[in-house]
């Protein structure tokens, strides 16, 4: 499918936002490339939605400039920004039919009815809604509502798509399906897309690049693979990955990490009296108690499907370890956990900065 418009770049330049005394966004600098699918990822209250709303013009930045396609739009009304937005609640007008909802952006621009009809049918076809044009939103399922909201966003081919957790109200199965469709649609249109979510799987699967926000501060901006393999700090390392990265406290001297019950060789050299060693569950293996880097006993044993998740009780707390699905250990059995050296990350205990 040919794109309507080439993608445009978007940038946040030292954008700050406060509500009264509460600072929700600290100096955000962000360059989005033309046609890029950028995901803003963060927990609730991280400022990701605020950033999106500032870009949409529904909220004004306290400081800093916002640019779309190289133009400063900081003080421009939403309707002049050439953007369209999909809301978490879909924001479908209950008194309008599907067709009227989809055609609304054209109607308010006084496009004539015949052109509107053509565009509505085309947009509806793109999201597979052709049959439902005369229904009202309350007669639609969650997935169908989601499609209507999408169709309303794509009908006028904006320069930028904004999506505010568009999939969070769908059930898990439908979410996976819509995710694939969204990705396909974005690629075929080539329109710059900013997507807000708290769901790391959505972020990892959809994004060209992911921006992780926490407490109004940008933690890392990188491709999903980079974020996973090379987290910038402890927060990112723990935020991404399921189950989350295991954390072991201790001290680093040279390339040796000293924990309460042993020494672990790390790929990093440095010195820190208080450090944190991080290792993902898939970089751990269960071995006999004698061999492991860390000793403990089995706490629980869950068969996930393609693997078994073993929770190990160690001196430093609980640790998650991925094992083969055939693995059968008994609760309370003493075992050791071997750590893959290349999968070890070391962070400062204070502030969480990565030691490289």
């Amino acid at each position, binding site marked *: 499918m040919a794109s309507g418009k080439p993608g445009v770049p978007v940038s946040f330049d030292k954008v700050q936002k406060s509500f009264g005394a509460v600072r929700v966004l600290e100096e955000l600098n962000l360059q989005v490339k033309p046609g890029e699918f950028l995901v803003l990822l963060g927990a609730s209250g991280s400022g990701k939605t605020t950033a999106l709303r500032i870009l949409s013009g529904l909220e004004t930045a306290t400081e800093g400039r916002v640019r779309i396609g190289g133009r400063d739009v900081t003080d421009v009304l939403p309707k002049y920004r050439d953007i369209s937005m999909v809301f978490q609640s879909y924001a479908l007008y209950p008194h309008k039919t599907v067709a009227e909802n989809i055609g*609304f952006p054209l109607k308010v621009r006084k496009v004539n009815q015949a052109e509107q009809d053509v565009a509505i049918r085309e947009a509806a076809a793109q999201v597979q809604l052709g049959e439902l044009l005369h229904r009202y939103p309350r007669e639609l399922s969650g997935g169908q509502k989601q499609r209507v909201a999408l169709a309303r966003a794509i009908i006028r081919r904006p320069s930028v798509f904004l999506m505010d957790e568009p999939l969070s109200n769908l059930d898990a199965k439908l979410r996976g399906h819509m995710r694939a469709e969204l990705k396909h649609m974005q690629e075929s249109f080539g329109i710059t897309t900013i997507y807000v979510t708290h769901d790391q799987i959505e972020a990892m699967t959809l994004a060209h690049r992911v921006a992780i926000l926490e407490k109004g501060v940008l933690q890392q901006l990188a491709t999903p693979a980079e974020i996973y393999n090379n987290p910038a700090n402890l927060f990112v390392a723990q935020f991404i990955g399921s189950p989350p990265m295991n954390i072991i406290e201790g001290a680093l001297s040279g390339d040796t990490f000293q924990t309460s019950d042993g020494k672990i060789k790390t790929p990093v050299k440095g010195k820190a009296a208080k450090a944190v060693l991080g290792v993902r569950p898939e970089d751990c293996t269960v071995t006999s108690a004698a061999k492991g880097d860390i000793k403990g006993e089995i706490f629980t044993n869950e068969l996930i499907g393609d693997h078994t998740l073993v929770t190990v009780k160690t001196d430093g707390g609980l640790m998650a370890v991925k094992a083969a699905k055939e693995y059968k250990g008994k609760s309370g059995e003493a075992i050791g956990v071997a750590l893959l050296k290349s999968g070890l990350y070391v962070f400062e205990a204070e502030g969480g900065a990565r030691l490289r």
Partner: protein
Amino acid sequence: MMELTARNTESWGEWIDRHSRTLFIAPAVSLILIFAIFPTFYSIVFALSRVRFSANGLQFRFVWFQNFYKQLFGNDQVHFLGKIEGLSAVGTVFLAIASAAVLWWLYRSVRTATWVGMIGRLISAATAIFVSWIMGATLLSGNPIGTLLTTLFYVTIGCGLQFFIGTGLAFLCSQPISGKSFFRVVFFIPLMITPLGVGFAMRMVADSSKGPLLPLLDFIGAGNWIWSADAWSARFVMMICDSWQWIPFIFIVMLAALENVPRDHVEAAQVDGASSVQIFREIIWPQIVPVAVTVLLIRMIEAFKIVDLPNIMTGGGPGTSTESMTLHSMYIWRSNDMGTSAAVAYLLLILTVVVCASFFNYVVLGQLRKARA
């Protein structure tokens, strides 16, 4: 002995609990049956009788529909309906157009309505044509109008005005405006002030010999104008005072309705490029129409009962021109003619029920159905 008492009290509690179904609702239902339903029926007897006080209580003499006849066609006609003499050309045309419109509406609904619905429509239509005839014969033929049309004037023109101003103010207050909470409190106050106090305050403010508006009236050259001497100006002043009190009601409900429109909808429309006017017309208004017609219905129901204001401000004068039907009935009661008083009250009941039921069936229900369909 102790055991026995304990068991006794417990069985009491059990008895109460077993009958809680009845006990919960019985007080309210009995109160309404005894003090609203029973008197309503009792009132029919008054309306159909000549009632006299005598040494051993009230004496009822059954007179069929004489009391009603007196109001509609007899010597009280001028007071109740107005002076019906010589239908003018304008009045005739108005009557013809109104009747034609009503009959057309009736004709169109023949196919769809059930027979119960049809009877209802016939009653509404008959009332509408009757009122149009009275309007044509009195108002539009230059004759004075009676308490029936005065009441309808307060209800229709008054409620309409209150609705527009109230909704307008609510819309302004729903905008991002500074001092919103101050305006809200201030605009709400009149609703709660004793109507009698409102009447008196307005009487003072509108006083034509030492009231505060005198300099203003002098300035526009109407210093000698006495509003209470002319029938229509008195009615309009009455209506404005009534509006002063009741606009807050519309305001407060409509404001809540406006603020209840999901913010997402408005924001989505803003991003989609709609102007404020478009947003109001396309997004907000359709979502608050059901509330709007309901609040209008409630206001109309209350407006039919208007009595305090004309009573204190003009005493119904000049002549009987600001008298509402309630006040009309009250004055007849004061002259100890209970039968006629009850008849007028019953006419008011019929009028209220017909108008409100029509509005409810043809307007409110339609909007509610549309909103929920």
